[in-house]
């Protein structure tokens, strides 16, 4: 007895089903909140109002979103080639070396916009370099890129800690961080952008890097869907056999894709280092690389979806900080749980609800067909 069948329209395929997956992820998150002894509705309300209820809140939300956009783009580019880059976290961390190099070297001598350009180059190069070895190992030795990038994350933590203590830390200081950057190392805030909408940015770190992130999203779209390289990446991702047939070299594309992915990850560092903290310190990535995975899956590896998903997670982060005041039990780790649930439902269980949706559509079509009364 087959179930009634209907081919789903595009809006259901790319809109409804992902939304259902998300709703379920959030429902379960609500259950976790409940289990931890708090009211999920109150938590949700606090979250949304904390994120969007004020200019400062929106500023923070978009600041976090900036990190997630870069991370999501990085993961998505790799996904298109069929590669799972879990190493964005480490690549962003190491990208910080390139950003700090630009800032610490030129912050007194060059204006911010030139330092910014140098930081982009430096961050991208360092991030790409950190992705290079796992990429090369996958291409030439068949080492599973998931395991190697996870290892490189752990190695990056050790490396950066050593750098902070032994390279960046000024003599006589105790904290593992660099000195504060001069004016050349500060990326201006986007107060004026919010002011256009009548909002006051106040103390939020919302800065110009956000616009860079949007630009990057656009460029990724052009790369993947409008360029030759993007065509080759997608071919490889969909069918290694067809890529071989077409003369597309798997090794070459694997490495180029990972370099781009790592480069995007490296740009993430600019947002925190030059846009907010104005120094390089520990934990300036703090999990954004992993959020990128959730964002890429939620956004179906498409830049528009990624930007929207990033704003959603930005809301979770900012709202989450607000919640911590009223609900000390719900710490930032709750975001990690939500992240995991989103990845689960948007990624591994993405077809879970499809049969019900298909059946509903088929029933509706059947009803409307008989309802209009055939000849």
């Amino acid at each position, binding site marked *: *007895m*087959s179930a009634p*069948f209907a*081919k789903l329209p595009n809006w259901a395929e790319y809109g409804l089903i992902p939304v259902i997956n998300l709703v379920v992820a959030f429902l379960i998150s609500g259950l976790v909140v409940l289990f931890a002894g708090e009211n999920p509705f109150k938590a949700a309300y606090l979250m949304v109002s904390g994120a969007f209820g004020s200019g400062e809140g929106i500023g923070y939300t978009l600041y976090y979103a900036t990190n997630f956009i870069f991370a999501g783009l990085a993961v998505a580019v790799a996904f298109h080639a069929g590669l799972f880059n879990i190493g964005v976290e480490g690549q962003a961390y190491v990208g910080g070396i390139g950003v700090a190099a630009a800032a610490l070297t030129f912050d007194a001598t060059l204006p911010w916009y030139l330092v910014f350009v140098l930081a982009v180059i430096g961050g991208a190069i360092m991030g790409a370099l950190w992705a290079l070895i796992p990429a090369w190992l996958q291409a030439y030795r068949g080492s599973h890129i998931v395991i190697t990038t996870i290892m490189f994350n752990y190695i990056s933590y050790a490396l950066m800690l050593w750098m902070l203590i032994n390279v960046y830390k000024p003599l006589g200081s105790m904290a593992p961080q660099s000195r504060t950057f001069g004016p050349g190392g500060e990326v201006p805030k986007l107060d004026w952008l919010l002011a256009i909408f009548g909002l006051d940015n106040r103390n939020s770190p919302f800065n110009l890097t956000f616009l860079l992130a949007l630009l990057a999203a656009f460029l990724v779209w*052009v790369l993947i869907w*409008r*360029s*030759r*390289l*993007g*065509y*080759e990446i*997608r*071919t490889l991702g*969909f*069918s290694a*056999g*067809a890529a*071989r*047939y*077409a*003369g*597309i070299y798997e090794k070459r594309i694997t490495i180029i894709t990972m370099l781009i992915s790592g480069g995007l990850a490296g740009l993430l560092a600019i947002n925190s280092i030059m846009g907010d903290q104005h120094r390089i310190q520990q934990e300036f990535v703090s999990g954004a690389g992993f959020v990128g995975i959730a964002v890429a899956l939620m956004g179906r590896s498409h830049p528009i979806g990624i930007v929207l998903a990033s704003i959603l997670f930005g809301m979770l982060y900012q709202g989450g900080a607000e919640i911590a005041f009223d609900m000390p039990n719900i710490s930032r780790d709750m975001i990690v749980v939500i992240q995991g649930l989103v990845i689960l439902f948007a990624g591994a269980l993405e077809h879970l609800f499809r049969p019900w949706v298909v059946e509903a559509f088929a029933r509706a079509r059947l009803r409307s067909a008989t309802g209009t009364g055939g000849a």
Partner: protein
Amino acid sequence: MSELAIELKGIDKSFGPVHANKNIDLKVRKGTIHGIIGENGAGKSTLMSILYGFYQADKGDIHIGGTKANIKDPSGAIASGIGMVHQHFMLVENFTVLENVMLGAEDSPILNKGIAKARNELKRLEDEYEMEVDPDALIEELPVGIQQRVEILKALFRGAEILILDEPTGVLTPAEADHLFRILGQLKAQGKTVIFITHKLREIMAITDEVSVMRRGEIVATRETAKTSVEELAELMVGRRVLLRVEKGEAKPEGVKLAVRNLTVKDSRGVTMVDNVSFDVRAGEIVGIAGVAGNGQSELLEAISGMRRAVSGSVELNGEDTDATGHRDPAGLRKRGLAHVPEDRHHMGLVLKFEESENSILGYHDDPKYGRAGLLNVDAIRADAQAKIEQYDIRPPNPRLKTANFSGGNQQKIVLAREMERDPIVLIIGQPTRGVDVGAIEFIHRRIIEMRDAGKAILLVSVELDEIRSLADRILVMFAGRVVGERSPETPEGEIGLLMAGVEQKLEAAE
């Protein structure tokens, strides 16, 4: 009137919008070899899958030996005495023959207790049906014909009274196929029932007692084999008179466009698949390579097209060397005028998840007419695709539709349009009509002849001997990686068949 081994009543099955089996009634008499013939997509495999418990029919009953059977899964089928030999063998490659035969019938949770008993039973079956196999050999080291025997022994080991064979001769040489038919004869003599599924008319006539013809999900006729003919069956299969041969004029070959010299190619495991092969293809001629699948044809095509490195030898395209043993560059060869219709359109010739227009540039995405400065001009690409759609009557005529949604024949047309419209100098084609319905086959064959008449040099590889004999101007037979003979298409099929089995070569060597 012998009793019925199997009776299917009103079997109906749909997969979404595809109505694979429509109200099927089938009677298979005990102790007979019953053939089921039909084209690709006629519904044969679905029907057998239902019989073996892979799917449940939407409607209808199965009766085994007169009693209604409720077959919910393969173990139910096995319990009802049904055994199946699949087209793609269901064997664990790195297990031994004994382990494969025992799988599912181990007789005890501790293996050692059941092994001795299994060995004896296996030996008994081998003797009874004259099928010799070494029980401790690893499957991956056995030739295909022997692997198939293991599949049959597996079924018999489980006590099958009814044996279903799904396209069993696709991977066998004519000699191995004959041996198989003898085994089937033995089975029939022992009272077993055999259902034999194939799309090859000749086999039906050779060994079956009765034959049912399937077309578009229905059984359109059942005949006693002795009382029908190849022509009648073919017509029943497609519903109209079929031209088994395509009309073509004389070939007018000119200069050599593809020169293969002493080419030796090894596969990924280091096994020599192409062994010192040399031949020419001229402009305006079709050279057909006949042979059973697995004799090196695939590796030959890959080596010529630049997908695989050769160990030694050379390939010259239009007079220029292609560095066959060095760095391979399929894209570069394309630019020099080589077009390639690959054997496997699903995993090589097309990216099924791409839109049709995206597939129409696969391999040629570097072409300046599709974009400049590293970018792609989507409008130009779609317009180009649209033109090809009209010319090749590709349906549905929508360049934005995902390629997976096109039928086999139309998918193949997408590939052909892409490769042929390049105006190549040399066109190499592998299995052009595999999985393609009869109407599209005619179209494709005609286009290939047209390309020949336009002066292209065409190398055609096919496991369908009829196709080769119909299209080729010269036939080369490949066996075990060598070209064992060259014949004209008028050569009797038996003679070519012997070459395909490597027999003639030995005879020549003995003289």
